[in-house]
């Protein structure tokens, strides 16, 4: 049986089992939105999947149910018992169809039109099925129903037969209490949908367990047998023989809680550590038996580790399976022809990584379809086949999973990227002149970058690739691209097999061991003591090393971590941090080892240079270096974000990773305030007696125009008591000169008067806290001091009338 169908069955059975309970909960508390929503989701999932797999009967039925549920969920209908009945009815029908699917891979011939109609009617809020009496079935109804509405096998099929799982019919009919029971056999048969309050039906009967053989409705013989068995007074379930030998799907696979797997994984991690310790210890012993035992332990542990890891492994086809469809839809909507090819879809990786890769992959695919591959006419004109091709490859190499997404479309045009980046102020012209074509191509990973001529509903808003990159880096992966103009683009992603156990290089610095994840490792360089001084050169006091003719920035781990250096030789570990390479100088390079990553305690998590900790063979703890964090700390990364002419600096959302240039000023009340330098045009000083007033506004004459002045303490309010005397009216400031920060350009300027300008700092700043008062975008820590971030946007809005004043003059 198809893997997808198997999974669908297991999943649906599980969902259905939960639904029974949920309906019961719901009946006790009909207002429970959360339960309703979760029922809705389950039904929706089943519907979605069976639509995908082509089980149309099943889809139609669940669709009807879903419609009703969605109204209930939104609170537009009240949950009544009738609805419960109809919905439970539906569940049972779904079960029957599912078992049909399991046996025959089709969903049977039954279309359950009546049930669908009931559901639809309920949805309209229209007449519910006949009044329902409380389901307290005396034994008689069995007989009554027997007499009255069970069809003779020879007669044309009665509706009841269609509507309900035949085996259960006789059990289910409570007497409609308000009406006289129809006992005349010659009365016209009442449609089962009206006759039976369907809810009571299923509340009385335990749902057929998933593995129990259910009547295969498409075969006439068992159906007859069912009716016969129904005619028997004893309410036994018919035991139809299983159609095919072999265990059903639900028997051969079990679902295991992911937390349990996680726990096993942790334990295996511990075992690996214990193994490492024993192996290390054995090496210094001379006991052959111990050595033999430790070798065995070594082997078994490795196998166990692999086995446990495999339980969490899933083929990448799990996420790839949906892609052809996505591509097809997207291609149709943009009028392109695209073929999808896949290689290595059986490549396995850890479940959590699969989940994490879902969004980035979809994004890359969308991009490739939307931007990468050209319109058929264009392709034809340049002699390419009209049909574009999207190739997805996955393979294992070097303990990592490689994923490639290649299109044979237009490729990236470095010149176009350059222009765009300059236009958007993401790079400066000086910087652009030093960049290679590949550097330009990599610009697409910058935030806020989009080359699409127009924003489509698929992509082009420029919030894509940087998110893809961040997401991949979050799981310890790396993304790069290759592109040739006119030939296409290939995105190459490398991610670790699993997150819990990673291969790492162990180095020593300052007498402490550190682990460097191998995914970041490029090469190792060792420079002798004699050559050491000549090897490191300086570019304006920044050390560099010539690596095959290119300058590699050097970072001393000892310095970054404030450790004392001991080494005489120069050991350089060449690392890849995002798009940048740098050499990390360590005292000693030990060896490579599989390490178990353990998270650091919360109190240590704000130190960005460590990704976690691990336990070494000797039982001591070693810290795992976060290569990106070190690069940031050493300002390696800052090179890629050109901050000089950036006009993009806006407080709030971009604070997280962007390099910013901030002006530090003393805020009223001796606090510290940071002002993004981007929108600032100049810093000026004015003599207090230069200040004149225009109406209620203080102004100075400045470069032939009138510059309105606003005082910071008026903007922020002087909230805290200050030791300084508050300024009196009319500009009697305590400082002899007025320090003004001039915002804006041309004539539309405004000067912000501050008490004192402290410093200008340039770094990656992370907002630590929310804004506590108007005019402030948030708080952060700069130079070890809590500093408020000035909200320039809102300030400029506030002073807009003043700007207008300046313009008029």
């Amino acid at each position, binding site marked *: 049986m198809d893997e997808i169908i198997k999974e669908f069955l297991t999943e649906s059975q599980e969902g259905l089992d939960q639904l029974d309970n949920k309906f019961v909960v719901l009946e006790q508390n009909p207002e429970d939105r959360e339960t309703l929503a979760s029922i809705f989701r389950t039904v929706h999932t089943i519907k979605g999947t069976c639509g995908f797999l082509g089980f149309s009967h099943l889809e139609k039925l669940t669709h009807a149910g879903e419609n009703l549920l969605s109204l209930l969920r939104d609170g537009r209908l009240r949950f009544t018992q009738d609805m419960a009945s109809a919905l439970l009815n539906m569940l049972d029908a779904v079960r029957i169809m599912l078992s049909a699917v399991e046996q025959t891979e089709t969903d049977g011939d039954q279309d359950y039109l009546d049930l669908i109609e009931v559901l639809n009617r309920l949805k309209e809020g229209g007449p519910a099925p006949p009044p329902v009496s409380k389901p307290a079935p005396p034994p008689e109804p069995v007989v009554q129903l027997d007499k009255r509405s069970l069809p003779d096998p020879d007669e044309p099929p009665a509706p009841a037969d269609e509507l309900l799982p035949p085996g259960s019919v006789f059990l289910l009919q409570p007497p409609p209490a308000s009406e006289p029971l129809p006992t005349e056999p010659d009365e016209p048969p009442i449609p089962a949908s009206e006759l039976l309050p369907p809810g009571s039906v299923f509340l009385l009967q335990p749902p057929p367990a998933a593995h129990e053989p259910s009547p295969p409705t498409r075969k006439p013989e068992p159906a007859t047998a069912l009716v016969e068995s129904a005619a028997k007074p004893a309410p036994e379930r018919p035991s139809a023989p299983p159609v095919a030998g072999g265990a059903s799907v639900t028997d051969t696979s079990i679902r295991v809680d992911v937390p349990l797997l996680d726990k096993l994984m942790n334990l295996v991690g*511990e075992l690996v*550590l*214990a193994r490492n310790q024993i192996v290390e210890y054995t090496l210094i012993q001379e006991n052959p038996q111990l050595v033999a035992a430790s070798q065995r332990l070594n082997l078994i542990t490795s196998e166990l580790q692999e086995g446990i890891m495999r339980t969490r492994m899933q083929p990448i086809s799990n996420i790839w399976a949906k892609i052809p469809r996505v591509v097809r839809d997207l291609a149709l909507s943009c009028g392109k022809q695209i073929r999808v090819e896949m290689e290595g879809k059986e490549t396995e990786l850890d479940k959590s990584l699969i989940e994490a890769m879902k969004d980035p992959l979809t994004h890359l695919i969308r991009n490739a379809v939307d931007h990468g591959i050209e319109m058929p006419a264009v392709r034809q004109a340049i002699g390419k086949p009209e049909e574009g091709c999207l190739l997805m490859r996955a393979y294992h190499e070097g303990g990592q999973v490689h994923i490639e997404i290649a299109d044979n479309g237009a490729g990236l045009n470095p010149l176009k990227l350059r222009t765009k980046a300059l236009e958007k102020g993401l790079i400066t012209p000086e910087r652009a002149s030093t960049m290679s074509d590949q550097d330009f191509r990599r610009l697409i990973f910058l935030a806020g970058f989009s080359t699409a001529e127009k924003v489509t509903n698929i992509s082009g808003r420029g919030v894509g690739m940087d998110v893809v990159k961040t997401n991949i880096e979050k799981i310890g992966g790396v993304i790069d691209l290759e592109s040739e103009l006119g030939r296409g683009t290939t995105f190459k992603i490398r991610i670790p097999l699993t997150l819990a156990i990673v291969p790492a290089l162990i180095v020593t610095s*300052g007498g*402490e061991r550190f682990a460097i994840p191998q995914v970041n490792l490029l090469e190792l360089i060792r420079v002798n003591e004699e050559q050491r001084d000549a090897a490191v050169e300086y570019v304006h006091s920044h050390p560099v090393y010539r690596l095959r003719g290119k300058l590699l920035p050097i970072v001393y781990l000892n310095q970054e*971590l*404030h*450790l004392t250096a001991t080494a005489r030789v120069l050991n350089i570990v060449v690392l890849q941090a995002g798009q940048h390479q740098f050499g990390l100088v360590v005292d000693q390079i030990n060896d490579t080892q599989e390490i178990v990553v*353990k998270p*650091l*305690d*919360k*109190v*240590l998590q*704000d*130190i960005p*240079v*460590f990704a976690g*900790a691990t*336990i070494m063979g000797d*039982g*001591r*703890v*070693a*810290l795992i270096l976060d290569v990106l964090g070190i690069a940031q700390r050493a300002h390696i990364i800052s090179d890629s974000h050109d901050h000089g002419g950036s006009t993009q600096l806006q407080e709030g959302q971009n604070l997280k990773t962007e390099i910013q240039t901030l002006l530090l000023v003393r805020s009223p009340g001796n606090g510290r305030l940071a002002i993004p330098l981007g929108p600032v045009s100049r810093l000026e000083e004015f003599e207090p007696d230069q200040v004149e007033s225009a109406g209620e506004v203080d102004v100075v004459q400045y470069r032939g125009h009138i510059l309105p002045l606003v005082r910071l303490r008026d903007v922020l309010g002087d909230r805290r008591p200050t030791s300084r005397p508050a300024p009196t009216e009319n500009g009697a400031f305590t400082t002899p000169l007025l320090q003004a920060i001039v915002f804006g350009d041309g004539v539309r300027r405004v000067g912000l008067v501050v008490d004192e300008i402290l410093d200008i700092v340039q770094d990656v700043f992370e907002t630590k806290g929310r804004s506590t008062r108007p005019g402030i975008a948030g708080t952060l820590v700069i130079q*070890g001091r809590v500093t408020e971030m000035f909200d320039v946007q809102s300030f400029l809005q506030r002073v807009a009338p003043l700007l207008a004043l300046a313009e008029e003059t």
Partner: protein
Amino acid sequence: MADHRQFCTFFLDDRFFGVEVEKVQEVIRYQVFTPVPLASPVIRGLINLRGQIVTAIDLRRLLLIGDRTDDYRPINIVVHTRQGTFSLLVDRIGDVLDVDHASFEHPPDTLEGIARELIQGTYKLQGRLLLTMNIDKLFNPALLNRSREATKKTES
């Protein structure tokens, strides 16, 4: 509140402290710890507690009592707090004491700074005072940072 409470007692220098016995997981002898560069000086390092990595906090540094001599090997008191499991480095371990709550008193107003937040109160015992600590407050990052600054100040 019960009349009697049990405290696991320990010494820092000659000062006598206690933490509620329910919070204490175990007391272990000196463990080699791995220092964490760039972290607050209060955090002496990480220890391997049977496969679990535990952060060790030096109470001397937190309470701004001068450092031990280099060869003095502190004892670990492993405690559970709302923030997780931590190890407290102390000089010597004392007995588990049963104290009468009637002898409890809040710390005097003259106590200030970090000690004020950490020390819950004192039990007046025969001949000495037992200072009890509120260890849930101990590991709040803000507090650790403040003590980092305080350490800097005393150093300079």
